[in-house]
């Protein structure tokens, strides 16, 4: 299977994933529930949650860490610095533009004309 991409850049170029401080973690499982990328797993024998698939983590995502009631999850760097630097380094905006076109073709009701002015009657 082809490598997962982040706006045209191979995911393996990025070291970005959560780390759990086991001394703070109470194994509530909210990290696993909050992650849509399958980063976490539950270890049945020890009834604990672990970072099982760090490479699945969405680059710049810190949602699990932000919801963690115990502040037990950390990331390599502040996400805005990490992502903005990566965007500049890899010049991702032309790819983002293509992705935007694809998204709007797939979801045409997300194309807004008129914006804040309230739109134009009979448009189209």
């Amino acid at each position, binding site marked *: 299977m082809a490598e997962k991409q982040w*706006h045209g850049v191979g995911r393996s170029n990025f070291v970005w994933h959560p780390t759990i401080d086991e001394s703070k973690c109470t194994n*509530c*499982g*909210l990290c*696993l*529930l*909050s992650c*849509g990328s*399958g980063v*976490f*797993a*539950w*270890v*049945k*024998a020890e009834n604990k949650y*672990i970072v*099982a698939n760090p490479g699945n983590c*969405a680059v*710049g*995502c*810190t*949602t699990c860490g*932000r*919801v*963690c*009631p115990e*502040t037990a999850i950390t990331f390599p760097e502040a*996400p*805005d610095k*990490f*992502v*903005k630097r990566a*965007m*500049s380094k890899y010049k991702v*905006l032309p790819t*983002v*533009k293509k*992705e*935007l076109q694809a*998204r*709007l073709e*797939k*979801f045409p009701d*997300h*194309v*807004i*004309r*008129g*914006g*804040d002015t309230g739109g134009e009657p009979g448009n189209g």
Partner: protein
Amino acid sequence: MADDFFAKWHGIDRAKITWGPVIDSDKCTGCGFCVVTCGEKRNVFGYDPEKKKAVVLFQDHCMVGCNNCQVGCLWNAISFPHDDQYVRELARTIPKEQLQKELKAKLEANPDLVRE
């Protein structure tokens, strides 16, 4: 997408939670990063191709605690009404039984997330 997916956050009425992006359209350059960074399921943003601006369409579909759109906005045009402390305090109010119920369902549906 069933509406009830967006109605609750771990048992808490989503309508009672203030969480979602706000765009300063004067700063937005229309690059589209926020639009495509948000997942297709939640798909919070729309886009005005004439004005070349991103638009917030469904603020209450935003994943509570996620600000992935904001961290990649090179023009700092996206803000959120609260910081992560707000989310953390909310998370602390979720009953353990609620999480257990959801965990059981998610792990049953995704056996690859279980290690023996």
